[in-house]
């Protein structure tokens, strides 16, 4: 085993070379973000469906959904500040 000290990690400089022609790193970040948002949206819709469907949970349903949407939109807005969208 090598006794060399650990070197700080650095991403390969030619990583961007693997991107298809005409696709920038910024566009890839945006698409990754869209995938996360799509997952969030589907999960949220399914959970909201369950909250609203079952009567024994109804009194907490609206505050819970409102809090989830509020915090989620704050985090989404924060994430979007790192892109060219906002």
């Amino acid at each position, binding site marked *: 085993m090598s006794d060399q*000290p*650990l*070197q*700080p*990690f650095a991403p390969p400089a030619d990583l961007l070379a693997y991107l298809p022609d005409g696709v920038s790193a910024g566009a890839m*970040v945006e698409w*990754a*973000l869209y995938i*996360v948002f799509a*997952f*969030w949206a589907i*999960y*949220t819709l*399914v*959970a909201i469906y*369950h*909250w609203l*469907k*079952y*009567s*024994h*949970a109804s009194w*907490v349903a609206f505050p*819970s959904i409102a809090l*989830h949407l509020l*915090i*989620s939109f704050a*985090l*989404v807005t*924060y*994430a*979007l*500040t*790192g*892109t060219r969208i906002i």
Partner: protein
Amino acid sequence: MKEFELEPGEHVVRQLRRHWLLFLGELLPYAILAILPFAVPKLLVLAPPLVGYAGFFNYSEPVMRVALGAWLLMSWTGAWGAFTKYFLNAWILTSQRVVTIKQRGFFRREVSSLLLARVQDVTTNVTGVLFSLLGIGNIKVQSAGADVEFTMRGIPRPEQMRDLIMKYIPEEEEPKNN
């Protein structure tokens, strides 16, 4: 949509869920995930060979803001999903039966009833120092045929619930001797 239809003269006596402390335990992994992006750079600074990695966690960089925002969004959504499942799981005691609602996952749900008239045995079980101090325990309700058994796990004050179930079990009618 109603979970189940109440019979004429039947009313809900009590509805309960697992103790909130057990729910907090379920939230712990999500809390750790949420803290991780802030804790890791501080921990890396403590290990001299790894100090160089700490520079990646610079959240003034646009890409890192995207990553942090997405990470926190996923952590929050997971925690909210845990709360959804916690809340959708419930035990309902009516004047005639015990209803258990188990939300094992989204689109995987079980609702079952046990008539109190068929209940033969109600057992409570509190195990451990912490659970004893906080009054958290289990209740096992067995039917006369022993083919149906309900277990409520991690509920607050199980003795009270047992007494409540016993109170609503209808007394057997004495056979009439003519």
